[in-house]
């Protein structure tokens, strides 16, 4: 069967693809922002002397990391309304991705914290810093630097996960590609365009993060 490429359809719909890409980036950004807050909170909670926070964080991380993201998305979108929690499509997706991101980022930050030298913390304490000052001015900068590589990988993988938003009909890149695919049957062109856009964005993010790593040399 002959198949001739016609990129005219793609050209005509390029704005939709780009809108989809921007929407995906926005979803990823929102989820990563909330997820980072969750991750930081959980990671610092495990530093506490009491056992309970550590154990709770452990349960959260293990539960979320071992459940498929798609199941979480569908659960939040379809099952939570039964409990009276009604969220819009976008909010529910951002919420799902944020708790998913939170679990992965907790692990990342925790390993970053583990890499902070004991002596630096003791030194901070010796000059009379309070716990909060210690966390903000001494531990955090070193921790961020430690986690930068792992953070980059996690961010990229979270951006790729926004493709799952297509399943609950959020018009991001995968949704647009699928729509064009079924409407015009330009199969190869639609998926090639989506793949190239995803790939280019990921490479761009990776390059940006590498730049950041070079900017802040390892402690």
């Amino acid at each position, binding site marked *: 069967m002959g198949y001739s490429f016609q990129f005219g359809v793609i050209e005509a719909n390029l704005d939709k693809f780009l809108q989809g890409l921007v929407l995906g980036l926005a979803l990823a950004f929102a989820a990563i922002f909330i997820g980072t807050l969750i991750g930081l909170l959980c990671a610092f909670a495990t530093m506490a002397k009491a056992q309970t926070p550590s154990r709770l964080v452990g349960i959260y991380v293990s539960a979320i990391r071992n459940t498929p993201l798609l199941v979480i998305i569908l659960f939040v979108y*379809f099952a939570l309304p039964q409990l009276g929690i009604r969220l819009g499509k976008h909010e529910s997706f951002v919420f799902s991705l944020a708790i998913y991101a939170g679990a992965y980022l907790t692990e990342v930050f925790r390993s970053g914290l583990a890499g902070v030298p004991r002596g630096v913390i003791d030194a901070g304490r010796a000059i009379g810093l309070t716990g909060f000052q210690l966390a903000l001015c001494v531990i955090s900068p070193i921790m961020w630097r430690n986690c930068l590589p792992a953070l980059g990988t996690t961010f990229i993988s979270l951006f790729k996960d926004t493709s799952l938003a297509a399943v609950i009909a959020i018009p991001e890149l995968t949704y647009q590609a699928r729509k064009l695919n079924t409407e015009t049957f330009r199969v190869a062109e639609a998926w090639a365009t989506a793949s190239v856009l995803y790939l280019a964005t990921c490479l761009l993010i990776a390059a940006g993060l590498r730049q950041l790593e070079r900017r802040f040399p390892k402690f």
Partner: protein
Amino acid sequence: MEHFTHELWVARWALAEGLLLTVEISLASIFCGTIIGLLAGVGLTYGTWILRTPIRALVDCVRGIPVLVLILTSFYLLTFAGINLTAIESGLLALSVFCGAHMGEIIRGALQSIPRTQIDAGRAIGLTFPRILVYVLLPQAMRQIMPVWINTGAELVKASTLLSVIGTGELLLRTQEIVGRNFMTLEFYGLCGLLYFLVNYLIERFGKLAGRHFALQ
């Protein structure tokens, strides 16, 4: 509650079949993916640049594209290329390629951490390269590969849920069908999540055990 147990009893075989298919798909794709990954990893580490460049490009491409897009592409595109695969087969292909690319990177990382003198030593006692690989390099690399490999297994169980989008009757699609019939979203999506959690939790435990087994004493 009684309603739920009744519905659960009605749906028991559908759920069991779905879970079985999920496990089967995961096992098959990790098997094929490991073979692809082994070839890619060895090629990336020891190949000449003519071999290395295309593998590197392929691996980076696959790693930069979301799994869902890979699955949809292999589902829709192969038919147009004249290759007729069922939903399960095209899904398996996509998952294997995804797994292969990630395993390739993992195996490359492990192999690169072995000092090159090991190869020289192998050569000195007259081993050919395939033998050096099998008897000298891979056993040492195994220590690093094993824990991550088992982790990849858990990732694949999670990624297999995406096959529900192209109509493969694995656990998630079965759950969606059941929910479509009785509208008990909370109970059945919850149960589905729990089943996935249990499978992956077992894998995670197993991975920790394996990690301890392969760790240097």
